[in-house]
């Protein structure tokens, strides 16, 4: 037991460094992916044919292809097209695409939950379409989508573990490297799991609480 604890204490700094990278890559991907999701949601609803088609393609590929394949496409494939990305940039590219594609559906459902009467009322008051979106539809729609978006954020932290495949030194990669050096896979992978759980479990519980609170107000 003492042996295990001292091993954990010795490797904790490396894992915490990895966790920082995981959180950074997730944070940047979400910061790009959420606005992208909103744009895609509006694009899919748009009446302009070309915009509609492009948005649909981006969403369907982002949702249909495994995140791991998109990651490898960005890191190993794009250099062939003359675009060489660092592993961090490739990870952000792939995870932001993934986030945009999935959250566009969440946000679209939120936007569609705004009662049609409010949109009719806005146009009756002579509001422009852009203003209706900005002041009526988006604020209410995002409020409905908020719990699902936060739930998705915890999933994205888990998905960032896939960056192992493109040699980004995040939590899973660092744990794996320590495992290969010491051959104590079980111990080190368990510690990595505890670190993921330490963030995701409270976050999941918080999302549940938020869901209940918001549900109370809207109903």
């Amino acid at each position, binding site marked *: 037991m003492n042996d295990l604890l001292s091993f954990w204490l010795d490797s904790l700094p490396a894992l915490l460094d990895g966790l920082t990278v995981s959180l950074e890559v997730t944070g940047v991907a979400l910061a790009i992916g959420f606005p992208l999701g909103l744009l895609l949601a509006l694009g899919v609803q748009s009446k302009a044919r070309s915009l509609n088609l492009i948005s649909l393609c981006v969403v369907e590929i982002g949702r249909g292809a*495994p995140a791991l394949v998109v990651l490898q496409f960005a890191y190993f494939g794009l250099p062939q*097209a003359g675009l060489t990305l660092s592993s961090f940039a490739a990870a952000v590219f792939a995870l932001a695409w993934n986030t945009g594609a999935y959250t566009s559906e969440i946000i679209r459902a939120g936007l569609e939950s705004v009662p049609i009467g409010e949109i009719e009322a806005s146009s009756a008051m002579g509001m422009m379409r852009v203003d209706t979106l900005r002041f009526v539809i988006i604020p209410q729609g995002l409020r409905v989508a908020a719990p699902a978006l936060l739930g998705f954020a915890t999933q994205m932290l888990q998905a960032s573990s896939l960056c192992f495949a493109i040699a980004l030194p995040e939590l899973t990669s660092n744990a794996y490297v320590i495992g290969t050096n010491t051959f104590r896979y079980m111990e080190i992978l368990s510690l990595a799991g505890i670190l993921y759980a330490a963030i995701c479990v409270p976050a999941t519980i918080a999302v549940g609480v938020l869901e209940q609170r918001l549900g109370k107000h809207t109903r």
Partner: protein
Amino acid sequence: MTADMFLGVATGIPWTLAVTAAAFVLGAALGLPLCAMRLSNVALLRVIALVYIILFRSVPPLLWVFVFFFGLGSGYLPISAFEGVVLGLGLITAANMAEIYRGALSAIHAGQWEASEALALPSYSTYLDIIAPQLLRVSLPSSASYAVGLLKDSAIASTIGVTDISFNANYIAKSTYQGLPVFAIAALFYIMISLPVAALARAADQKLRARVAL
């Protein structure tokens, strides 16, 4: 893009399907007792099921697969890469399926249980003949979309050396330096597999919806 590339990536399809199917069957089966424990009257069983579900849903699938393949494999239990990934993904699927079953159970009208009791049906018959068919029908859409998600998660099998679509794509991309078309082909295969599965589930859902009134 050459035919070689296309065929090379395609040889991984059976492994992708095998990993997905095996993990789904394992998860769908284990999900039932887990769901029963989650709803049990015994507090201890409820807590165990809840901890299991939270734990398996809060730690990344890749890490679980590593725990089983590298962790268990390093001296505890000899395990192949295929077994490792099926065990990892299957146990995660069990946690998610238990929640899907629980959601489906709450959609089954309480009158169904009351009527079974009023008819003095034995409890195995209540579950097997009355509840199970409805449970299957109600949970089908969510199970199907979970299976499609699992198909994509199965790509992590490639990280421990199962020769699935992703593994072959990776191998060919690195040996030919043609990453762009190769990974595009791999993505295309995943999308092409998930489309008929989704369509099949929709068709089955409509057929069952017509047969089992709810």
